[in-house]
C-alpha cells in the first residue's frame, strides 16, 4: 500500500536547499584546506613525484561516487519495498551528484595515469570501474528523464539501480581475470607499502570533506526535487 505523505511545500524546499548549499560551501572550503595540506604539508612521493598528489582528490572522489551509487541502489530496493516517494527523490539526487564525482574520477584518473603508467588509459580495476559507474549513472538519469509517470519512473529507476549494483562485482571480476592474463607494462609502480602517516592524514581529511560535500550536494539536489514536487502539487490544486 502506498504511504500517503503530506505534499511538500515550497518553504520546506527552500529550507532544505539552503541547508544543502551551506553544507556544500563548508565542504568546498574544507576541500580547499585539504588541497593546501596536500600541496604544502605532505611529503612528495619519491618515485611518482608531484603528480601523485592527485591521489588526495581522486581517491576521495572515487569513494563519494561509489557511495552515491550504492545508495541509489539501496534506496531503490527500499522504495520497491516501502513505496515511499522520499526514497525515490533521494535516489534521483544521489544519482546526479554521483555523476559529478564520477566526472572528477574520470578526469583525474587519466591525468594521474599518464605520468605514472605512460598512457592516458589502462584497463585496470579503478579506471574501468569508474567508466562503468559513469555509464550506469548516465543510463539511470536518461531513463528517469524519459518517463513522465512519477510512480513508473520511481519503480523502473529502482530496478535499474539494483541491477546496476549487482553489476559492480562482475566488472571487478572481469577486470581481475583480464589483468592476471594481460599485465600492463608500468613505467613507475605506484607505491604499495603502508602510507606514511602524513599522507594518510591528508587522505583522511580529504575523504571526510568529500563525504561532507556529497551530503551537502545531495541535500541541495533533494531540496530542488522537493520544490519541483511542491510546484506540481500546487499547480494541480
Amino acid at each position: 500500500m502506498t504511504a500517503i505523505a503530506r505534499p511538500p511545500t515550497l518553504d520546506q524546499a527552500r529550507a532544505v536547499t539552503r541547508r544543502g548549499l551551506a553544507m556544500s560551501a563548508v565542504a568546498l572550503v574544507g576541500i580547499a584546506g585539504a588541497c593546501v595540506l596536500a600541496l604544502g604539508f605532505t611529503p612528495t612521493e619519491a618515485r611518482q613525484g608531484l603528480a601523485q598528489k592527485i591521489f588526495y582528490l581522486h581517491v576521495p572522489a572515487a569513494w563519494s561516487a561509489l557511495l552515491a551509487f550504492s545508495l541509489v541502489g539501496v534506496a531503490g530496493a527500499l522504495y520497491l519495498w516501502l513505496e515511499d516517494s522520499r526514497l525515490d527523490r533521494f535516489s534521483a539526487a544521489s544519482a546526479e551528484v554521483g555523476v559529478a564525482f564520477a566526472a572528477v574520477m574520470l578526469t583525474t584518473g587519466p591525468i594521474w595515469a599518464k605520468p605514472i603508467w605512460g598512457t592516458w588509459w589502462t584497463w585496470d580495476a579503478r579506471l574501468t570501474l569508474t567508466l562503468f559507474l559513469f555509464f550506469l549513472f548516465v543510463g539511470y538519469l536518461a531513463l528517469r528523464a524519459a518517463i513522465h509517470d512519477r510512480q513508473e519512473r520511481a519503480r523502473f529507476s529502482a530496478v535499474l539501480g539494483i541491477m546496476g549494483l549487482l553489476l559492480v562485482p562482475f566488472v571487478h571480476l572481469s577486470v581481475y581475470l583480464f589483468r592476471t592474463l594481460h599485465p600492463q607494462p608500468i613505467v613507475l609502480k605506484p607505491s604499495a607499502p603502508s602510507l606514511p602517516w602524513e599522507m594518510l592524514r591528508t587522505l583522511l581529511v580529504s575523504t571526510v570533506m568529500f563525504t561532507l560535500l556529497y551530503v551537502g550536494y545531495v541535500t541541495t539536489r533533494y531540496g530542488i526535487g522537493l520544490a519541483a514536487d511542491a510546484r506540481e502539487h500546487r499547480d494541480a490544486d
Partner: protein
Amino acid sequence: MPTEPPANGGYMVAGYLVTAGILIGYYLSLLRRARKSVKSEKGPP
C-alpha cells in the same frame, strides 16, 4: 643512489584545476537551480 622524483608537476596542477572546476561548477549549477525552483511567484494565477 637516490634519484630525483620526475618533473610532472604540470599534471598535478591540471588535476587540481579540473577537480576544482567540476566541483565548483556543479555547486554553482545547484545554486542557480535552487534559487529558480524556490522562487515563489506572486501574481495572478
